[in-house]
């Protein structure tokens, strides 16, 4: 078992002006799950692109040996012929085609150009059983959730007789339940002799499923560690050990201490949402947010926890200008007075801001500059007689570049060229600049590196310390426990509880997040009784 299936030696890859990889060494033993971790920009994705032939042989330095044989892949097809299959973060399935068609896309079961449907279907059934997906081969991809789509991707890889499976952040878009299934499947595949490279931000995942971990930093391989003493044994490597190597410095304090707000509005309720109910925009029979009520005070950080599909984003977006779904009933109050948030402009006018979980699709104009993205939500205020104050705009952008530590040479840099963490800081700046009273942050640290995360936590803390009411929606329980004053839980469209930070634990929250038997709770978290 100690034989190496893959050896990459001294891999170097440069882009104009940037050395993305600088002598990376990595060896994967046959039949192991080998995790690769590191901050964004550490070179993980580039390394995998070199391995899979996206960056063809000759465009990088160093050598790749697969099963002892020196490799020179010209493209992805060449690496796939050897049994190396990469599954990207953004899934590459065609939504309009069926599971079977997707699995054999580009790899069709055909004789003389005519597809053999019977062998396609039989083979698909077999592969679906192997990955534990209970769907018919004819089901269209569009009808599946992200978790099931991920399984289809793996089935597709298996159809190509994969020997080394590369998964790039496979659980980024999955809920805990689907993540657990997927990680379990990776373990099963390992037992069947399929080696796996797992790129992940989530350290607990690495500890859970990986045998070995290689840490990359600034394009160099820092260290390869054994995750556990024996195969199947308990993990021996600690989060602290990995984090230290990833960031190259001691993280004595990952979450900032909460700075209390002592202004005149301390303790005053800022936003109250009552009985908020929303139906699905297409499938209008489905109630996605059901009689949800909550309140958040000035200077308070309220977390909203929930599994995928609990309705957290849907709740936030529908409160924010009815940007999602069909409104059924419910009211929004600011400082105890009911207000209309029928349009985004109205919501912004009342001092509510919503920072999306999907910054590339819903948050940023990637082809425009940092400065113009930051000013967008507050343009009417930054303009006189409909003309934008260019000096003021640039000053504001400079201020945020400094205070938020946005890493860019000037504020006229195109946002699409920034890293995920810096893009997130631009979205946050945009909404802080809108000068809201209430900020709803949806997954504020998704897909960004550890260092940037800590910076974002500090910003959130400061916002609350300035008296703003902050709502943080997150799938990472440790993050909610780390930054919030109170944590509300949602399950299947309903609010199932509100816990103070002191009394909340991961287990306790998870229990509330999976409850199906409760009715609505009121704004303070008490169950609504029959009499009221």
């Amino acid at each position: 078992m100690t034989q190496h299936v893959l050896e990459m030696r001294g891999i170097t890859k440069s882009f104009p002006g940037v050395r993305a990889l600088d002598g990376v060494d990595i060896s994967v033993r046959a039949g192991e799950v080998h995790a690769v971790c590191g901050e964004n920009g550490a070179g993980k994705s580039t390394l995998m692109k070199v391995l899979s032939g996206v960056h063809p042989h000759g465009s990088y330095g160093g050598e790749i040996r697969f099963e002892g044989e020196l490799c020179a892949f010209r493209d992805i097809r060449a690496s796939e012929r050897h049994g190396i299959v990469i599954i990207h973060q953004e899934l590459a399935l065609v939504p309009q085609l069926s599971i079977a068609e997707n699995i054999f896309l580009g790899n069709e079961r055909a004789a003389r150009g005519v597809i053999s449907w019977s062998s396609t279907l039989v083979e698909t059934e077999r592969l679906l059983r192997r990955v534990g997906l209970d769907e018919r081969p004819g089901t269209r991809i569009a009808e599946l959730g992200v978790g099931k789509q991920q399984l289809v991707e793996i089935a597709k890889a298996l159809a190509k007789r994969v020997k080394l499976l590369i998964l790039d952040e496979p659980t980024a878009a999955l809920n805990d339940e689907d993540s657990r299934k997927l990680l379990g499947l990776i373990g099963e595949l390992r037992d069947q002799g399929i080696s796996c490279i797992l790129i992940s931000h989530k350290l607990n995942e690495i500890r859970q499923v990986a045998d070995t971990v290689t840490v990359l930093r600034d394009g160099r391989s820092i260290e390869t560690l054994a995750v556990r003493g024996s195969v199947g044994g308990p993990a021996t490597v600690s989060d602290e050990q990995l984090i230290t190597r990833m960031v190259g410095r001691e993280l004595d304090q990952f979450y900032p201490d909460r700075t209390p707000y002592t202004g005149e509005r301390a303790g005053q309720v800022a936003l109250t949402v009552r009985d908020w109910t929303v139906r699905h925009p297409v499938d209008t029979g489905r109630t996605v947010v059901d009689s949800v009520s909550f309140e958040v005070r000035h200077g308070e950080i309220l977390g909203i926890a929930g599994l995928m599909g609990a309705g957290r984003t849907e709740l936030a977006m529908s409160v924010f200008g009815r940007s999602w779904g069909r409104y059924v009933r419910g009211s929004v109050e600011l400082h105890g007075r009911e207000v209309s948030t029928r349009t985004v402009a109205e919501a912004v006018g009342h001092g509510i801001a919503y920072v999306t979980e999907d910054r590339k699709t819903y948050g940023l104009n990637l082809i425009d500059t940092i400065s113009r993205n930051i000013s967008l939500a507050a343009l009417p205020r930054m303009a006189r007689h409909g003309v934008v104050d260019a000096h003021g705009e640039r000053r504001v952008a400079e201020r945020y570049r400094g205070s938020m530590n946005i890493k860019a040479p000037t504020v006229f840099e195109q946002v699409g060229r920034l890293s995920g963490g810096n893009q997130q800081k631009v979205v946050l700046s945009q909404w802080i600049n809108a000068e809201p009273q209430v900020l709803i942050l949806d997954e504020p640290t998704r897909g960004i590196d550890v260092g940037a995360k800590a910076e974002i936590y500090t910003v959130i803390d400061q916002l609350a310390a300035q008296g703003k009411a902050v709502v943080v929606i997150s799938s990472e329980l440790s993050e909610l426990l780390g930054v919030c004053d109170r944590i509300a839980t949602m399950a299947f469209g309903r609010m199932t509880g509100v816990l103070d930070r002191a009394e909340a634990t991961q287990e306790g929250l998870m229990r509330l997040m999976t409850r199906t038997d409760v009715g609505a709770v009121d704004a303070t978290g008490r169950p609504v009784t029959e009499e009221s």
Partner: protein
Amino acid sequence: MSQTTLGKNAGDSRERDGGGTSTARALTGQALRALRDNMRQYGMVIALVLLLGLFQVWSGGDMLLPRNVTNILLQNGYILILAIGMMIVIINGHIDLSVGSLAAFTGAAAAVMMVDHDMPWQLALFLSLLIGAVVGAWQGFWIAYVGIPSFIVTLAGMLLFRGATQILLDGQSISPFPEGFQDISQGFLPEVGPDTNYHNLTVLMGVLVCAVALFQEWRQRKQALAYELHVLPFRMFLLKCAAIVAAVLAFTLTLASYRGVPVVLLILGGLLVVMGYVMRNAVIGRHIYALGGNRAAAQLSGVKDKRVTMLVFVNMGVLAALAGCVFAARLNAGTPGAGNLFELEAIAAAFIGGASMSGGVGTVLGAVIGGLVLGVLNNGMSLVGISQDVQQVIKGLVLLAAVGFDVWNKRRARS
């Protein structure tokens, strides 16, 4: 994917060194990148100059004769007006196929009002523009509020208004127009002052334009320096200023030695300045770019998507009506066949001038430059006696080459 990775690493490396020299290097890199990003527009200015030179030599000096330069403006005025409106539509992420038919319809309406109903030409012009606005609002309504793709709505409009023009004119041409109306397209600024062999008012305007342009350049440089942005070395800056002055003076003197500034040029200049300013500095202009760049994000930032799109199409309608009147005035007739294929000329001008199919990119000046490239091609090829059929082929290839160059350029920038 590779773009993001590259960006991240670039950010990291900047963070790591961060000394004085590397900041300078980063700024130089950015200036080069800015140059590369604007390559399409600079490229088109260079292409325009090369084309003029080519045809000047080929035609034995006829190209840049004052009469021909004036002609190019008169021949292309209406296309340039349409191109300005089309550029804004494309930046907003839409397309308008109906502008040719709409120009024909509004031109015909003006003709009917003036010739059949003896309406004063000013009123007829105003009502035509109003019709353009109403039609724009009609199409904008279907696109913005009902959600029908602009391609379909304006394709319907293209058929609809062509038919309406035929009905309105009963298949006949109507003429002649009052002189005042003809002047929109055939008129020039009046002669004033002593006889100097040059058109005095035109020379005066040329000097004024020079002064304003120099002031703008100086102010921009001052601002850029204040923001510590990369600027041209001082000597290069002087050279650039000299080039601007030379170009403006050469152009105005050329016009001044014929009949002076045509009215169409005044209209175009006004549109260029106003629309350019609105797109650059007004909130509505920003909203148009933001919607084209990322519609969902703009909506979630409180941009009123529907209202902005509506306004963009109303603007396009008014400009199409203006172009229709200019064209009718040039022909001195309202004809059923007017404006045929204008929409495609305008769209081609916008794309040659730097628009992107996906929206969010482009400038009003770019549209005018793109339109001029097409216009100079048309005029030059006719001067040297290339047949109409071959001209079509060449124009098609130029459009393909211009956009192809841009795509290639972007891909090179990315990898």
